[in-house]
Structures are given as C-alpha cells and as structure tokens.
C-alpha cells in the first residue's frame, strides 16, 4: 500500500516530540477527519534551528510529519514558507491518492507554526489560536475523491462516481 520511503519514515519517524519553549507552534486537522498534527519550531537567525512534531493518524500522516520536519530543518524562514504539501508528497515519492486530502497536512502545520512565530514577534495576539481543519488545495493541483479515488474537478462539491458529498473536504 505504501512505498518504501513512506514506510521508512513511518517506522523510523524523524524529529518526534515537543519543544517546550517553542518559538512557534502549528496545529492542523481534527480527530473527526482522522488526523491531527502539531509542529514545534525553534528559530535562530531567521532559520529553523530545531523542529519537532506530534501526530495522531495513519501511517501516511506519520510519514508526512516526519518528512516535513526533515525538509524544513535548517531552512531559512523565507525558503520554508515556500514549502507545500505537494513537496512533501514528492519527497516521499508519492502517497496513495485517497490519502492526499486527509493525511498530507505537514506543510500546512509548518506554515501555521511559522505564522505563529511571526505573530508573536510582531506582538499580534489572536482571539483564537490559528488552526486549520480543512484541506485547501492549491490552484492547478489535482484533487481526488477521498472515498473512491476518482479525480474531482475544481469547484464541484460531489463525486460523480460515488455520489459522496464533498463540501466538507473539497
């Protein structure tokens, strides 16, 4: 089901844990959709000096979390901000299509953690912590029905093949 790279990151996840005095924390997902990911950052000279994660989720979710921490570690914030979920899937040499929506949230968690760091530095306080529960797919990225793997056209809120409503996910 999963390729060797994904299984390697699942079996030996890199950078697991919590940074107690983190400069930025990002959290995505909710248990309802199956996966939750938290990313902790330590920033030094505008670079990611340390990064750790915690994940509740399937094999793919754990591999994605591990991979994003490995890619982001040591990067400048400017470069890290360019990272997308697609980059993570590519670095993992592919994920099952139906898992792209639900478990490929690593870059989202990273971006929220960076935002959290920048907010703190700018003295911005938000009434609610930044949190992302739904997947948003970037323009031009192909989207697949999480229930039957069929490609979904942008802007369509149900799957042609299985008639599932996709309003929450798409």
């Amino acid at each position, binding site marked *: 089901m999963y390729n060797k790279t994904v299984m390697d990151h699942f079996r030996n996840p890199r950078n697991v844990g919590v940074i107690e005095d983190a400069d930025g924390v990002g959290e995505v997902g909710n248990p309802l959709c199956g996966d939750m990911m938290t990313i902790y950052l330590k920033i030094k000279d505008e670079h990611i000096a340390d990064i750790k994660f*915690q994940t*509740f989720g399937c094999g793919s979710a*754990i591999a994605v979390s591990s991979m994003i921490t490995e890619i982001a570690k040591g990067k400048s914030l400017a470069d890290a901000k360019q990272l997308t979920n697609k980059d993570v899937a590519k670095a993992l040499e592919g994920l099952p299509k139906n898992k792209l929506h639900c478990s490929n949230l690593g870059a989202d968690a990273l971006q929220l953690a960076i935002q959290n760091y920048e907010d703190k530095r700018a003295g911005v306080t938000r009434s609610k912590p930044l949190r992302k529960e739904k997947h948003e797919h970037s323009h031009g990225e192909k989207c697949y029905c999480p229930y039957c793997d069929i490609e979904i056209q942008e802007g369509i809120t149900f799957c042609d093949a299985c008639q599932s409503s996709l309003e929450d996910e798409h």
Partner: protein
Amino acid sequence: MKVINLDHISAKPLLPEVKEVMIAAIKEDYHNPSSQHKSGEIAAEALQTAREAMAGLLNCKTAKEIVFTSGGTESVNHAIKGVALANEDKGKHIITSNIEHNAVIRSLRRLKSSGFAVTSLAVDAGGRVNPKDVAEAITKDTILVSIMHSNNETGTIQPIEEIGKITREKKVIFHSDAVDSVGVVPMDVQQLGVDLLSFAANTFYGPAGVGGLFIRRGTRIFPLLDGGVQENNKRAGAENLVGIIGTGKAAELALRDMDKRLIHLKGLKDQLLNELPTMIDEYIINTHPEYSLPNLVSISVRYIEGESVMLMLDDDDIAVSTRSACATGSLRASHVLLSLGLSHADAQGTLVISFGIDNSKEDINTFLKALKNVVTTLRDISPLYQKKADRLGS
C-alpha cells in the same frame, strides 16, 4: 516467515482435510451435476453429500433447503432482493438494524431507489437490537426483517431467537446474515425461527468464494441469478463443485468438532481479555461481554490510530484488522462503532482481533507483548496523549 494470524475474520486457513477432498475433487474431473448420464450422476451425488452435510450443520428439515452460492455477499443479496421482488404485491416495507454489513445496507439502498421503504433500528450501548423495537416497527406493509446473527466488527450476537418468535407470530419473512456465526457457534434454524440464513464457507475453514443460503421450504423468493434450474431452481449456473465439496467437508468437521473448538477459542478470548489490562490502559472493549462470538474481540485503544497499530504489528509478523477510517477504502468512520456511541477519535483506534483453531496461547502472549510496545511508541508520538498528560498535570 511465520505470521501469527489474528485476522481470521478476513481469512481463515483451509483445514488439511478440506484441502485433501478439494484436491481429490480436482483430480476426479467431475462432470456437470445437472447432466443425466452416469458421469453427471456421480457429480450430482458428490453435490448431494455436501448439501446434506451443510443441512446437518444448520439442522434443516431437508437438504433441499440449502442453496449454494458464491459466498456470503451473494447469499445476502439473494435473500433480500429475492424476497423483496417476490413479495412486493404484499407490501414494500423492510426492517433492518443500523449495524448490518454493507451487503445488507447496500442491497437495501438499491431497493429503496425502486420504491421500498426501510426502517433501520438503533442498537443499545452493548450493540444489540431490542426485539420489542422490531415488533413495534412491523406494519401491515412489512414483508421482511433482516437482522444479522453476529456482527463482523464487534462479534456481538443479536437476540435472533426472540426476533424469530415475533416474525413468526406476525407472519413476516425473517432473514439473518449469519456469515460470521455459521460453523463457529451452534446454529439451529428451527430454534432460531429464521426463514433465511446466509453463510460463508471460509468462516468454518472451507474455501473462500463459496457460501450459501438456507431457504425454509415455503418461503416466497425469486432467484438472484436467472438461467438454468440448478440448486432446486433457486440459483442458476453450473455449480462450483470443487468448492462445494470442500464446504461439505468443512461443515461436517465443524459439526463434529464444535464443542472442542468452542472450548479452545473461549480459552484464547478469556486469556486476551484477562491479560489486556496488565499490558495497556485506556481502551474500550466493543464486544458484548455475554452475547458474543468466541473468536473475536474488538478493542478501541485511545489516543492512537488503528492503521498505524496494524502496520507496526505487521512488522512484528502479527496480522490484525483495524476499523479505523484511515484504513478503509471509504476513509469513513465505521457505522457500527458510531452506533455503539463511540467518538470519532476513539473509533480511529479500533482493532479487531479474531483468532482461530490454529492459534495458540503463545500467539496471544506474543501479540499482547507486541501491542504494548506499539501502543507506547504511538502514544509517544500522539498529540492527543500529550494533551491528556498536560490536563492531568495542570
């Protein structure tokens, strides 16, 4: 590589005796049982022997009440659609439960789109249908009640005998999907009061791809497959004779060894349930403590996700099944677990441990030790477990 199979609900090994008769049957090169010449008659005799063994396992009045099919799914489709179409002049209302297998759910969904009305009953916290609810749901339009014997995800057994009394009194046809029960626990169609009962051969160590349907004499039902007059005119198409011969042997052995197997399986189940609390904490048992199969335990381990557990146990050469949404094709939380009142997060951590007569106490020990390690590893990664620790600490 020796894998410990604790996923018998997905596949059971063929018994050596079953393999033997099937190999012999292949070598025998049987002719078509419907042919009237000598070769055909020899094949028909082999078919009849298997049918009688199956009828014996279920205590049918006559072997003619057994129809062999391609498995549990076909049997369920046949029972539901066949009864609905043959009785729609009497009414178009069907009663079922919220925890049925997809074969039942989707057959009924199909019928709904052609004008049938379906009442789906809720289960109690233990996962059982209340027979009173069935009685109350029956109207003059009700033609069929379909309630499963045991649940494939939790192993919980339904009060079929009580429901059977109600359907008999109200003269409504009663089908039970007993795919995970037949050949595992004693089944007597007279005592249960069912008119139709679906079964699968692999459940009692027969071949996958063979199953059948008990159809009580006098039950109005159309065939699912139209064509020839095989299977007493109830299931067209040349029989899978090799598979059916294997099924007959498996049925014979299931009846002969039932008591011995029950003692063995019950021992493993008790061992698992008794030792689990010494290995892990914070889990939910979804299997009914009293009314359940002897060979299956469903556990929801909190704060972690089932597919991860399954994959890690697989690395330890232990096969289990998970009901986590992440591991299903649909990525949806199990309707059975949600019906029991489980939260989505808890449902995510659900493992189905199903064992067989080929498992030993040692297998259960090995599994428990491996599970302890896997749960610790995954909880260390889990933000939910961390949050819980923070809550307790503050």
